[in-house]
Each structure stands twice: as C-alpha cells, then as structure tokens.
C-alpha cells in the first residue's frame, strides 16, 4: 500500500494549529503571571533571578571583552588628539588641587581638634570592595549595571556603590559572585539627600532620564543651580555625605540634578559595605578603610567615646 503522507497532514494541520494557538495563549498567560509574581516580591522569583544572573554573568564577562577592547581603542585614539591640551589642563588642575589639599589638610586637622573638644562620636570607617562593571542593563525601562562582586565578597542588599566621582546607586540583587546595582537615575531609585549648602533634606527620585529630580523638599528650601547634593544618611541605608550630583535646572515644581558620575566611563565601582540596616560590618578589617582624605596620619583616637 502506498503511503499518503498528504492525507495525514491534512487531518493533522488544524489540530496542530489549534494546539499551537493553545500553547501560545498559555505562554502569554505565563508571562503575565510572571509579571504579577515579580511585582508581588515572591522570594522564589527573586532567587531564580539571582541564580540565573550568577550563572550567566561569566558568559557576559567574556562577551564583554571584545567590546571593551573596541571602546578602549576608540578612547585611546580620541585621547591622542587632545594629549597636549589635556596635559596643560591637568597641570593647571594639579596646581589647584594642591592648594585644595592644603586647605583640606588644615580643615581636617581643625576638624579633628574640634571633635576632640566636643567628645564627638565619629562615624565608623566603612569597608569597601571594588568591582568591575560588566554589563549595562540597557533597555528603555531600567537603569542598572551588573558588577563582579557578590555575597562571597560580603555584599548585601542596599549597599551603596560609588565611583571616583560620586554615588552610582544601590545593590538590588546579590548573587554569589555577581550583583546588580540599581543606578540613581532608575525609576525605582529614591535616595534621601541633603542640599549641601543649606542642609535642606529631600529625596532624589530617578525617572530613567539622565537627570533625576529632587522631591519632598521643605517648603521654604532655597535651592540654586550649582548646589551640590550629598546623601543624608536618613533611613540608614546609605552612609551620609556621599557626593551625588549638582543641581542644574530649576523649573517650577521640578528641581533636576546632574549626577557627578560619568555614566559612559563607568568601569569600576566601589561598594561600601554598610549593610542594609546601616550598621557597619567589621568582618574584613584588614582592608584599608574608606576615607575621602586617604589614610589618616594621626593615630585613631580612642578617647572620643564616652
């Protein structure tokens, strides 16, 4: 008997089509269910995310290398063109910084003397780890980066990530060896800050644009363009005094801040290990402490505590 494959497939076709429609609908529903589960902060979803992230991060790390090489090359070529001008600029800047260092040392000494006078309890030194940025969680809806440090390095949810310029963001997912940092420009980022000049407290709320807004300022706050914004430490998640950005535009009802961080050249970040309760964890005391001024020259004063 001759095979007639056509007759079978003519029967099977509508069934298969029906099945594929059903499967398609199931998948769409599954995707929506995932969205709701994720919104409901189900622990399992968070854990799965972290596990998958941890497993895939090495792949990304390898894949990022050629891209990094290209970026480096482009930067090198660009830098070569401006070498002379850059050199002159740096010489001037170095001059200025020398003077600043002088002022800073004097102020630090004065500060220390005053603290000793007033029995001030100093904030504890903060440990940090440095990590490389391997991926930029792109897309239209999220501002986050993936970094090469995780639980094994002592990171915890809520730790602050800073670059040389200022605050980058906070840790939102911690894997074993990799973590995700939510940038301060992200929609879900809200950071307690103060205006450095006036000490007016507020909250820096990201909205996925490059310049986040300040909200919840006191009624009588007087903010000017050019005012520096630093973290306030309220809520205890981030340590106080981290540089965040500068007020650039003030229109009625909205004050926008340009962060100090150079997002295009964000290669390494420092994670300050403060724990999400704001308590400093002293587990890696062998690391040099994080301090703006570099290592202190004077011995730690033990007598300031009462």
């Amino acid at each position, binding site marked *: 008997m001759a095979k007639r494959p056509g007759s079978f497939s003519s029967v099977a076709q509508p069934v298969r089509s029906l099945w594929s429609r059903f499967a398609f609908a199931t*998948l769409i529903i*599954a*995707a929506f*269910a995932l969205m709701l589960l*994720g919104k409901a902060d189900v622990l399992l979803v968070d854990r799965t995310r972290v596990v998958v*992230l941890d497993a895939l991060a090495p792949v990304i790390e390898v894949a990022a290398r050629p891209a990094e090489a290209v*970026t480096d090359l482009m930067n090198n070529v660009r830098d070569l063109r401006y070498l002379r001008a850059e050199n002159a600029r740096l010489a001037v800047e170095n001059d200025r910084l020398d003077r600043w260092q002088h002022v800073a040392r004097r102020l630090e000494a004065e500060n220390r003397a005053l603290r000793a006078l007033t029995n001030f309890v100093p904030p504890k030194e903060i440990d940090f780890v440095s990590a490389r940025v391997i991926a930029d*969680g792109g897309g239209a*809806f999220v501002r986050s980066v993936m970094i090469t440090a995780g639980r094994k390095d002592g990171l915890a949810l809520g730790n602050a990530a800073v670059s040389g310029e200022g605050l980058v963001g906070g840790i939102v997912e911690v894997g074993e060896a990799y973590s995700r940092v939510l940038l301060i420009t992200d929609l879900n980022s809200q950071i307690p800050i103060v205006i450095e000049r006036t000490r007016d407290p507020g909250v820096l709320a990201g909205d996925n644009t490059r310049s986040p807004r300040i909200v919840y300022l006191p009624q009588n706050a007087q903010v000017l363009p050019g005012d520096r914004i630093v973290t306030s430490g309220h809520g205890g998640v981030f340590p106080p005094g981290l540089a965040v950005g500068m007020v650039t535009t003030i229109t009625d009802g909205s004050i926008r801040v340009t962060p100090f961080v150079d997002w295009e050249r964000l290669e390494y970040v420092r994670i300050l290990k403060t724990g999400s309760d704001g308590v400093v964890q002293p587990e890696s005391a062998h690391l040099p402490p994080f301090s703006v001024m570099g290592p202190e020259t004077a011995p730690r004063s033990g007598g300031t505590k009462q």
Partner: protein
Amino acid sequence: MMRPTAAQRLDLWIRQSTPMALTAILAVLSVITIGIPGYASVVPGYTAMATFYWAVFRPDLQPASALFLIGVLQDILTGTPLGLTAVSLLLLHAFALSQRRALITKPFLLTWVGFMLIQLPVSILAWMMMSMLQFRLVGPEPALFQYLVTVLGFPVVAWLFVRLHRYVVR
C-alpha cells in the same frame, strides 16, 4: 527512502536551531556596554529584530516556547520586570506571523515598513505594561528612542540575518 545518517541529522539540527541560538546570543549582547554616550538607554532591541525576521521568513524554526524563554532570559539580564520582554516578543511574533503573507513576497523596503508598523504597537504596549507595573506613567522618551533605534537599525541587522538564512539555515 534513505534514512539520514547521524551526521546529517546533527548538521540539520544545528542549522535549524541557529535562528533561536542567535536570538539568545543577541539577548546577551544587548547588555554589553559600549562607550557610546547614552548607548545603554537606547540600546536597540536586537531580539525584537530577530524575532520579526524569523517570524516572517522561517516561522517553523521559531517556536513560541523558545521565544518565551529568551524573553525571560533577557528580562533577567537587563533587570526589567520578569515577563515583560517575553510578552513583547511573543506578541511581535504573532503579529508578524499574521501579516506574513503580505510581508514575505514584498521587496525589503516594504518588509522594513512592516517591521516599523508592527513594532510600534508592541513598544507602546510594553510601555503601558511597565507603567501599570510601576503604578505611574513611566517617561515615554526612552521607549520612543529605543523604538526608533530598533527600527532604524533593522536593515543592518537584517543583512546579517539574510546571510545566515542563506548560507547556514538554508
């Protein structure tokens, strides 16, 4: 009828799974940083381009379940709410499939216009879903830019797909 040898079957299997493997690789590539100012916020939707292309030219090699998994993978990588990209890709696939007959015989320029038209509601829907998940209106500008970059970048990436389609997938 001759039964294909194991090597032939492996060869065929590799060829046929190329489209989905490529889309998965593109999902990973879309989180790689490049030092172009503002790149991260306007990174083109490579997976969307791939999904559209294969839905039009080889829908038999693009099972919805694989698309779902790739979407979830991309959500995890980029940190978007789980399922958002998955829904977007599945809808794009379905829309493209429904218009397939109109798109497949046309010159490339019209296929491109087809992608513009089909990706638009998908992007708007993704933006609306994100807004709903956040309980507020998300700024539409980044989504708009991403749509434009995705649509404008399509011919370049499609050129690569055409090569692969011709010489690898067959």
